[in-house]
């Protein structure tokens, strides 16, 4: 069954353990200046604090709630769409959705076209511009851990329960119960956005104020092109058959293999 993560934003205290876990497990490099960045700084970066070696970023937003300033931390990373646009844009199948949930990337298949980056509605993918043989970098949702029945590195270290790992449908039900109990905003971000994502967010402060893209469609993005792109193999094989037929017809007096 497809796994998912529920992010209970108000439960996060901003310890940043998840981002360290990501670094440890994926052997990501430390930016020599990165350690000086605060969650406030990353929240203001145009790229949401995500870099080739920063697959996740904890961003701090100081928001007004009922007249008092409250601090909220948002963990940002690839949302692992149910029907990912990046994977459908990738003609070399370097990005794929695993049945367990993670949207993963295999650099051996990548041709470096970066269509995936254009396709992503949430701007979560990064490219290694500085490398001689660059690849795409993004959260992989720890596929080897998830496939082996373990939690992703980040959720396994969360001390407050702000990150919960589990079955998507169970987490959705839990999210709705939490929303009701705590009077959160009545929305699970990721339930329907672009057809649903494997990372679900709930919050007591408006998503728009925390740089969530709430203006996206609920329709899976690949479905816009599916109707005619689906015909690609038929057209391809059809053309091959037609052309082969013509060839045979034109050369019917000759030995076909000459």
């Amino acid at each position, binding site marked *: 069954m497809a796994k998912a993560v529920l992010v209970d934003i108000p439960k996060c205290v901003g310890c940043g353990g998840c*981002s360290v876990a990501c670094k440890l*497990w994926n*052997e990501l490099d430390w930016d020599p200046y990165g350690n000086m960045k605060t969650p406030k700084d990353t929240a203001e970066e145009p790229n949401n604090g995500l870099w080739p070696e920063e697959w996740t970023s904890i961003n701090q937003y100081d928001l007004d709630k009922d007249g008092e300033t*409250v601090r909220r931390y948002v963990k940002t990373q690839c949302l692992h769409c149910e029907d990912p646009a990046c994977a459908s844009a990738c003609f070399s199948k370097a990005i794929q959705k695993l049945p367990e949930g993670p949207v993963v990337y295999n650099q051996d298949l990548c041709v470096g076209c970066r269509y995936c980056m254009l396709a992503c509605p949430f701007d979560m993918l990064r490219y290694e511009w500085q490398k001689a043989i660059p690849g795409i970098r993004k959260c992989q949702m720890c596929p*080897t851990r998830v496939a082996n029945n373990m*939690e992703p590195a980040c959720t396994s270290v969360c001390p407050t329960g702000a990150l919960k*790992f589990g079955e998507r449908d169970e987490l959705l039900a839990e999210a709705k119960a939490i929303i009701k109990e705590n009077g959160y905003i009545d929305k699970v971000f990721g339930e329907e956005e672009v057809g649903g994502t494997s990372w679900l967010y709930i919050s007591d402060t408006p998503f728009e104020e925390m740089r969530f893209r709430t203006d996206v469609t609920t329709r899976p993005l690949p479905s816009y092109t599916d109707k005619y792109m689906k015909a690609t193999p038929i057209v391809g094989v059809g053309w091959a058959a037609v052309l082969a037929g013509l060839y045979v017809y034109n050369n019917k007096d000759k030995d076909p293999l000459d």
Partner: protein
Amino acid sequence: MEQKKKKGKNLSRRSFLKLAGGTGLAGATLGLTGCGQMEPEEAIGGEGWMPAQYNIPASWPTQVRGRVPIDPDNPAIVRDDRKCVLCGQCIEVCKEVQSVYGFYELPIKDEIVCINCGQCIHWCPSGAITEKNDIDKVLEALSDPEMTVVVQTAPATRIGLGEEFGMPVGTNVQGKQIAALRRLGFDVVFDTNFTADLTIMEEGTELVQRITGELDHPLPQFTSCCPGWVKFVEYFYPDLIPNLSSAKSPQQMLGPLVKTYYAEKKNLDPKKIFSVSIMPCTAKKFECQRPEMVDASKFLNDPQVSQDVDVVLTTRELAFMIKQASIDFHSLPDEEYDQLMGLGTGAGAIFGTTGGVMEAAVRSAYYLVTGEQPPEALWSLTPVRGMEGVKEATVTIPGAGDIKIAVISGLENARKVMDGIRDGHAPWAFIEVMACPGGCQYGGGQPRSSTPPSDKVRNTRTASLYKIDANAKLRNSHDNPEIKQIYEDFLTVPMSEKAEELLHTGYVSRAEEFDAKKPEDYLHEV
């Protein structure tokens, strides 16, 4: 039939290559277009390491998870993420020993609750958590020829500093510490033990006045020397703030006195005095930045006079400065503190360990009530000595009767007693609380001599402090001639108007900053 046979035989090299190439191309295309599911192992990443406690099936419980939150704006504590191994020890000590993390409701409001005690520093096995480094500010002041840089050293730094230079745990390096500070360029070296004695005079007088009813403040009186404890009360027990002694901590008493009393005596411009303190404590960094700790400036009515204590350095930071200056610590001579505020008694010295403030206070309270010197039994108040979390004793003072006292170290222990006081169980007149288990000698700024902290080290350091007391010529705060002098020349009497202005303070409730958990919610948690 004949023709077909012939064709098969005549398959030319060219035809064969065409066939093989075509098949290969078709196969490669099919492969590249992703016919076949990717395996998890083919994805990038996932080649690193995680502590074993996290490499278990998702459905299994993990007892120790994550780490304590540290605000980048924290004035006392910083963490280097590059060194963090997510072992979870910081969260363990913050929750189980200090009862801070996990004792507030989520969501947080606009503050990460932290009492700045720095015990997490001692539990961190990789040295990722450390004090906020303020050495540069001190170096800048030292390089300014117009500045008179005054430094004070806490009771517990003299028995800790030597460990940074390979000396046995608990070695008393008081003289070498003074010599090192002079060589680093500090102009005047004072002893916080002096203001520890002064604290006893003020706090002891306040206690006596509370007991006699002269002062309308509730009993039990709590000590207020520990900034971690004070912040803990402000966060979790704001209703008990009236019980806190209004006397400042020894550090914050010496601060304004340097810029008033000392400046007056030496005819110095208070604006050109930079006050540094060497503390075994990280919470002192927070304390010196409290907005109300600008009493010298208020007293002199000169907003240009900086805060009472400008910079606090931990014992470790001082050791680093000494090493950086290539001073051979071992070969330093033993030097003496500067006069005026450089003389401390044995009672001041034992401020550095749990039970010490209580013992010192009892000695002087006896004198303040009876006018006589305390009996020898009060020079070794064994029930309040040792590493137990909560210690109780009854002291008989003629004229005041039996006085019940309690000594607490470690805030989880304090929480239990405070919850009891809220429920009406408060048989004590005076309670000493130190945030760090064992008191200041194992404060967040002391050398990391065992990780996690051990009672063996605590006991050795404490024994060294008691030895200083036992060998001291003067063992009662009220016998300190410099204390007598400051009251004669400057402050008149304990709790005089001037003393209130410079040596006493007020506290603020921090309950608005967050939602504290209620006892019924945390009592059942393990």
